[in-house]
């Protein structure tokens, strides 16, 4: 318990609470349960992508193509729906997961088999996937009236007061908690990122593990692609442009070490929520829109500075008599 209180997750959670108190002092309605639920729903896509990104970063990689993957999958889903409105949502969900996974696998294969650095691979596929949307759609938008009600309605369906979109984020987060702690693959992510050289000695295939991480990340990006397009009821080339950096920022604020091998799912969740709250609070607390960018930038820097302080390990103690005071 005390170790949790000193952990970066606890500090981040405290920061989020402080932020909420601060916001509610200017705008009390923000912390009403209904609104918090809305903020959580709005943050769900970020949470989904950040979870995928977390396993990628844990394996010492990075996936910059998530937003492009999201957009391409979203566009394909939207175009499919526009052309065949009768296709059931379940099929679209499977398509989205599958397409996203394939794009993740392409990244993963190049990292695994060709040993190209992940940032290079995904910088490349980011532009390629994005470009493919243009080629596919000819630059045209898919608009709300072209989509079926079932298609756009799915993420909004209300279950116990929360929309499906939020439930999906909760479900996936739960799966990640379980998968990371209790499956060999989950532990392999840490091993591969923490010490890739040593991972080979323990029989873990580094490349294959990274491939799995990219596949998971891609799969979630695909899923989010459909949810995003359905939620905003529009698909175009540029959707979620620049979102990849926000996703990375969420992970890092959550304490996922960019050098791999360190960080927790809880951290990522909190990091995403932190950004989500900042993003949703800025429009309501009546701060000039021109200040928003600078404020979110400062928030990122402060958060990172904070959790690097808290994460610094004390090291061991040789002097016996120093043990008591330290």
């Amino acid at each position: 318990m005390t170790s949790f209180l000193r952990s970066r997750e606890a500090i981040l959670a405290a920061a989020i609470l402080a932020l909420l108190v601060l916001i509610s002092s200017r705008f009390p309605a923000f912390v009403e349960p209904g609104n918090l639920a809305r903020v959580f729903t709005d943050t769900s896509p970020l949470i989904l992508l950040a979870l995928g990104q977390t396993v990628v970063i844990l394996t010492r990689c990075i996936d910059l193509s998530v937003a492009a993957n999201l957009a391409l999958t979203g566009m394909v889903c939207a175009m499919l729906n526009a052309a065949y409105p009768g296709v059931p949502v379940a099929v679209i969900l499977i398509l989205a997961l599958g397409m996203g996974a394939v794009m993740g696998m392409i990244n993963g294969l190049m990292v695994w088999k060709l040993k190209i650095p992940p940032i290079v691979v995904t910088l490349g596929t980011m532009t390629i996937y994005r470009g493919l949307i243009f080629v596919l759609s000819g630059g045209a938008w898919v608009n709300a009236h072209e989509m079926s009600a079932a298609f756009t309605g799915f993420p909004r369906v209300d279950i116990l007061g929360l929309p499906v979109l939020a439930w999906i984020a909760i479900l996936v987060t739960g799966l990640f908690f379980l998968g990371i702690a209790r499956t060999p693959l989950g532990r392999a992510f840490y091993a591969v990122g923490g010490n890739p050289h040593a991972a080979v000695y323990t029989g873990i295939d580094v490349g294959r593990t990274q491939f799995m991480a990219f596949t998971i990340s891609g799969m979630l990006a695909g899923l989010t692609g459909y949810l995003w397009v359905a939620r905003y009821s529009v698909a175009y080339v540029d959707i979620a442009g620049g979102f990849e950096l926000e996703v990375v920022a969420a992970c890092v604020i959550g304490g996922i070490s960019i050098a791999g091998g360190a960080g927790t799912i809880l951290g990522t969740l909190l990091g995403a929520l932190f950004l989500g709250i900042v993003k949703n609070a800025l429009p309501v607390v009546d701060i000039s829109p021109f200040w928003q960018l600078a404020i979110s930038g400062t928030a990122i820097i402060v958060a990172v500075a904070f959790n690097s302080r808290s994460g610094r390990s004390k090291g061991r103690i040789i002097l016996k008599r120093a043990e008591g005071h330290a």
Partner: protein
Amino acid sequence: MQVSLTTPPVAHVTADAAPVLRLEGITKTFPGVKALDGVTLELYPGQVTALVGENGAGKSTIVKTLTGIYQPDGGTISLGGAPVHFATAQDATAAGITAIHQETVLFDELSVAENIFIGHAPRTRFGLIDWPKMRRDAQEILSRIDADLDPDMPLRELGIASKHLVAIARALSVDARVVIMDEPTAALSHKEIEELYELVERMRAEGRAILFISHKFDEIFRIADRYTVFRDGQHVGSGLISEVDEAELVRLMVGRSVDQIFPQRAHNIGDEVLKVVGYAHPTEFDEINFTLRRGEILGFYGLVGAGRSELMQALFGVTKPSKGAVRIDGQVRVIRSPAEAVENGIVYVPEDRGRQGAVIGLPIFQNVTLPSLAQTSRHGFLRLSEEFALAREYTERLDLRAAALDQDVGTLSGGNQQKVVIAKWLATKPKVIILDEPTKGIDIGSKAAVHGFMAELAAQGLSVIMVSSEIPEVLGMSDRVIVMREGLIAAELEGEALTPENLVRHAAGIGARP
């Protein structure tokens, strides 16, 4: 694969039993190096086979071939008479081969228990990792090797020695027929080494076949039943240990005889060069006072974790002391960074070669000239010819084995990397050189070269601080020895008082102050 801590010993097999593991004609080539050239190796159940050879002879390479990390280019491996092929490390583990590798094969962010079991963790019925069982099993193995470690502790909080114990525990977590140990005692001190020997004895009694790689002859003669010698990737001899002596083994290894391990030295010790007064650190050491004189070799002995490395790193400006002063040639100097230490003529050959010593990725000559760039360059512009000349001078003197000076240091064997790091510092012509476990992992021939060079430089007026956990080395090389224990100076020994018994007694705190 399950851990069996209570299996009764397998019936003891006699010396002329059939080998359990046999490698024949194994060849492995790296770009520019034929690391293994048709070597043969046999391991017998219930026997310890010592594998010896110079640095770069191919010892670690054969270990990696045996454990599925490298695939051999040619040759056969047979286990219990049947040919086997290991595509991954897990295959080898599954076949009952386990290894303590020369490199640390551990994960800082994972707990001790997980480090022991990663890759073969116990599972529940649903295929999920069974944490409670894993903790219990880890605890059991750790207590078997007398390691007092909490299985839940993150590995990053352990010192190097404890980490090594975890690596040993990891090897024991597999019920193996064949146990390989690649220089297992290099990072351990006296007490742990003794415990390791006992462990080896126990495993031998259980009928396991053990491959033991070491550069320390005393331990080879103490625990091995057989020997195999590699030279330059070739098998040059093997047999029963009772049928050779040390000289013969050395001759096989280096192809000539090495007559004298510790050089005779002229002790012409001059004025005081370095004086450390009241040095202290909040958590690592306290009340450090000592002097070092010109041309002197000052040994630092202690059990691993005694805080010697921390002290040396503070002297070198890596960590900050909370109190105390350093005088160099009588002048008080404040050293806040390694760069300032180098400017003041103090240099440090670190213990952790891979992380702090060699710049892997840069060629040998650039590693050597890195702290001497001011000397080889003109107005800040590089002069490659000067660099090559300087690098050649020092690496050849240390008997480096390399294909070319522009070869990446990362492709050298561990011992040869160590020579590059030592060369790097000697090339700066320092006043004081601090060597932290300087011959750790260095073969006997090169060790002699390093010791010889050390003696020669001391004779020319260089002052040396040598941190070592090897008693023969400490006794053989030092003029004076400081023994450290738990961050404090436990004793300063000189002349008659310099005996193995005294070292061990002070280091372990037997009969010393509380």
